């Protein structure tokens, strides 16, 4: 009896288990749709938007949100509240794919935005829905060096001089990381160097990287707090903040050439249609293109896409040659696959010599 009882329990337990599994999946989908169902007949006088963005844009969007909320209410009478979420760019993209109800995404790279689009949440052709290929601002990678630039770092080739240590995050896990890599690569090939020369250059460069932090903020901590390295390859806006916070201990150096980073913005069609928040979401992103929005963008050290505003702030944005990713590969996807992906150039750098 004991044994039969035991078996009965087992069978019972496992059926409960499978029953539950089936139920769970249906529950998950129903709860997803329940949560997404618009708040019973949508009140037109208030709407909440969620902007899912990457790490360093915190201060930028905070100011944009404040100004936009005021101007939108004045124009339409609708009270809009904007919530922000920040994190590593592709982590954020995965969250949206997995069901985070973003109305707009403002991520670091097209790789992440496109990953969401591939899941059907953002309609194909989104890049052309907003002005300037959905780029209200661009950015780049610049150098931060110790006070007075003791190692005399002015240009990319200076990075591989003996004794120079470079801090930049892991290209495998960080947007800042792979953009630094693309920049270094482009600094050779865009100036007419061959693929072999570029490979040699990046190999030497990464040999002189003592620490590969997993993300941009980690690298900043390593460089600033732990005082490791002579030069930090950072986002332009992060570099500006870093230098300002260091109060004279650090200097910023603009290399003559660097990559044009393209943090696209996009409306998450799947979510705004369900939440009926499309009008507000579109107005929100378009606001960033207005003169007022572009001024805020410039203030936070992102390069405004509006030429006039960019000119006005020319002193803050030294003119350097910004090359597009298409000059080193077909596009971002191709570049990532060739250089960073499994078996790419970056992997070969660390192959132990036999």
């Amino acid at each position, binding site marked *: *009896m*004991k044994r039969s*009882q*035991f078996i*009965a*329990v*087992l069978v*019972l*337990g*496992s059926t*409960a*288990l499978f029953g*539950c*599994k089936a139920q769970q999946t249906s529950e998950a989908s129903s709860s997803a749709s329940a949560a997404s169902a618009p708040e019973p007949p949508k009140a037109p006088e208030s709407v909440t938007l969620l902007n899912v963005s990457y790490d360093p844009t915190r201060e930028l969007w905070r100011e944009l949100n404040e100004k936009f909320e005021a101007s939108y209410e004045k124009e339409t009478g609708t009270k809009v509240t904007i919530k922000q979420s920040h994190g*590593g760019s*592709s*982590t954020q*993209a*995965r969250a949206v794919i997995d069901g985070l109800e973003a109305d707009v995404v403002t991520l670091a790279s097209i790789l992440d935005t496109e*990953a969401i689009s591939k899941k059907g949440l953002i309609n194909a052709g989104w890049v052309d829905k907003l002005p300037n290929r959905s780029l209200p601002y661009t950015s780049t990678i610049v150098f931060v060096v110790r006070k007075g630039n003791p190692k005399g770092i002015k240009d990319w080739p200076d990075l591989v001089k003996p004794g120079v240590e470079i801090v930049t995050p*892991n290209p*495998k*896990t*960080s947007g800042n990381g792979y953009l630094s890599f693309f920049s270094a690569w482009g600094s050779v090939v865009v100036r007419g160097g061959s693929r072999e020369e570029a490979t040699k250059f990046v190999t030497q460069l990464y040999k002189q990287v*003592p*620490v*590969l*932090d*997993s993300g941009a903020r*980690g690298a900043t*901590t390593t460089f600033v*707090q*732990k*005082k*490791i390295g002579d030069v930090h390859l950072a986002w332009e806006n992060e570099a500006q903040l870093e230098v300002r916070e260091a109060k004279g201990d650090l200097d910023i150096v603009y290399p003559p050439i660097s990559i044009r980073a393209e943090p696209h913005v996009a409306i998450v069609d799947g979510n705004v249609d369900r939440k009926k928040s499309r009008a507000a979401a579109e107005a929100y992103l378009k606001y960033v293109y207005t003169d007022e929005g572009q001024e805020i963008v410039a203030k936070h050290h992102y390069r405004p896409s509006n030429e006039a505003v960019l000119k006005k702030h020319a002193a803050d944005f030294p003119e350097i040659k910004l090359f597009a990713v298409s000059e080193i590969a077909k596009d971002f996807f191709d570049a*990532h696959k060739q250089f960073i*992906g*499994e078996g790419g150039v970056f*992997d070969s750098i*660390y*192959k*132990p010599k036999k």
Partner: protein
Amino acid sequence: MANVNRRVLPGFSLTLGYSIFYLSVLVLFPIVACFVRAASLSFDDFWNAVWTERARAAYLLTFGASFVAAIVNLVLGVLIAWVLVRYNFPGKRLVDSLVDLPLALPTAVGGLVYASLYVESGWLGRFLVPLGIQGAYTRLGIVLVLVFVGLPFMVRTVQPVLEDFDPESEEASASLGASRFQTLLHVIMPALYPAMITGFALAFARSVGEYGSIVFVSGNMPFKTEIAPILIVARLEEFAYGEATAIAVVLLIISFSMLILINLLEGWSRRNAV
């Protein structure tokens, strides 16, 4: 069938049913999901994802560092448990609660603190680095934080056993003419072995899964200080879910076989104790 319920308390079927149910929901489902996901890859893709030279270096480091850290904890943990159980001293309560701190502290904080202590400009690093001891961004750093996160598991498993240990057996041993060392080796230690092995297994398993602290202290250099969980994150960044879970499955399989081995060892030592 004269078998009347021999147990004192009723409810065996109910409790077993619930146990299986909860274990399934909390542990089995996520693991099964992992396997299902990884199974979506073809065998070749799976193999190419999990058995690269770089991945092998990472597995070796993850398990090697965890093993070394667990060994260190074995010595340190028993020592601390011994001191806490056998002696009274001012501040004992405080020391006792300090042991649990690594459990409460987000491990990322632990990693950051260790890294900044051991870099050349850090409090400890400024003395150690000139001696050639690099505690930050090396394998040594990884072992250090793993000792940190594993310590409570060791201490808390050994401590209760020591507390319950009957002083009379030590007295008996002494009165029979055993030296202190013999008493320790033949009377006290055998009683502790099962708990030590359990503590070792817990500390080891905890270390294999550790991510937060290591990324900050290791420097993540491929082939040198890159642990396997970093590879998982790297694959996720490429939206390669299948490959990422494939690596996770390999970690699971290795961990599980090691835990089974340790469990067998524990059973064996329990049978041979006393």
